[in-house]
């Protein structure tokens, strides 16, 4: 693998700029930029609604030699907008020369505490890279995405120390022309707080949000009869 020159970050969360996917992808992009890589970022939720923006996104992928997908886990895999993007890129790029010079990285996060629940989503990205002819440079999986909730990693202190370190190692490896090492994958998957605490905070958080909306009594509604 060669050292990347121009990186594209494709943020695949429907929450766009306010997403945890954006927080994680942006941190990696910043680390790459500090080492001389130029970059561009697009939000897929904003690209797919317009032909012009969709074409611009495809051109960006075509012109980049490092393509980073950052997305949340959605029903055990990718959100429909991410799989739509993979379909479009495959159609646009398939058959072109030197596709193996493009490196694919994926960052998947989910709201459950277990990072391993992202495995299928990352496998889909790996199969995509293989079928189109790109070079797979690695997939980082994170559980406990609720800890970040769309905030920049630098504002979150020690809670995300493992993820920051993982992304820093990933950037360094990519700049050395290497795939993301196991050390980074392991650190990314490591929750910064005990699992039981994350679960307790998550359940409490939903109740607090419902209280603010005055829907506490309706939370367990069953609007449809079986």
């Amino acid at each position: 693998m060669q050292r990347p020159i121009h990186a594209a970050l494709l943020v695949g969360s429907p929450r766009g700029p306010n997403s945890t996917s954006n927080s994680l992808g942006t941190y990696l992009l910043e680390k790459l930029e500090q080492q001389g890589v130029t970059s561009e970022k697009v939000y897929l939720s904003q690209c797919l609604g317009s032909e012009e923006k969709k074409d611009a996104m495809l051109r960006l992928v075509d012109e980049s030699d490092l393509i980073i997908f950052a997305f949340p886990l959605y029903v055990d895999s990718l959100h429909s907008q991410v799989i739509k993007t993979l379909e479009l890129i495959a159609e646009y790029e398939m058959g072109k020369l030197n596709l193996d010079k493009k490196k694919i990285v994926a960052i998947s996060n989910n709201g459950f505490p277990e990072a391993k629940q992202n495995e299928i989503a990352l496998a889909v990205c790996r199969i995509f890279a293989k079928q189109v002819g790109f070079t797979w440079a690695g997939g980082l999986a994170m559980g406990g995405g609720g800890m970040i909730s769309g905030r920049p990693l630098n504002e979150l202190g020690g809670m995300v120390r493992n993820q920051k370190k993982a992304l820093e190692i990933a950037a360094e490896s990519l700049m050395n022309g290497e795939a993301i090492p196991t050390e980074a994958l392991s650190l990314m998957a490591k929750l910064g707080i005990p699992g039981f605490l994350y679960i307790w905070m998550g359940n409490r958080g939903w109740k607090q949000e419902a209280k603010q909306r005055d829907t506490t009594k309706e939370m367990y509604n069953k609007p449809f009869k079986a």
Partner: protein
Amino acid sequence: MKALVLNGSKTEKEAVNSVSDYLVDFLRTNNYEVDVMVLRDEKIASCLGCFGCWLNTPGECVIKDAGSDLPRKVIQSDYVFLLTSVTFGMYSSELKKALDRFPCPVLLPFFKRINGEIHHAPRYDKYPSLVAIGVLPNPDEESEQTFATLVGRNGINLHTNAISSIVYSNDKPDVIKEKIVAAFSKVGV
């Protein structure tokens, strides 16, 4: 018994449509009440990830289009069939757009431990069985394995049993029909 068939083909020419025809014929012959949605013909927006179905109108999606009726259709079915071209080991974007719209409304936001893993707790007492039939042009072990694992995981998250089957584009009609019957029998019919 009620069956909901979600046809996730992207064009009229895909082999997924033949699978849908054989499946619907089989179900109707066996006296099932069948609701077929050809998803490319429906107006279904992508899920916004807004959590409105958990917090604002619990159990119901806040987007009003053909997708907002999916949670009701799913809960009132005994079987949900997911028909799709296998796309990098998963569902097509057409099918996934529909699939993204119903799990959150039919589940609770709260966490529940199942077989040592955390998932969302059920909102309802009963969920339909899932049968996913994926179409591939040729055998592809990695894609087939990923597809089967995905469908199994969907079953865990939706608190139901789930079965997957692979059909190849050049399978003869009799082979496709046999695979449909075999998959259906595995979910308890």
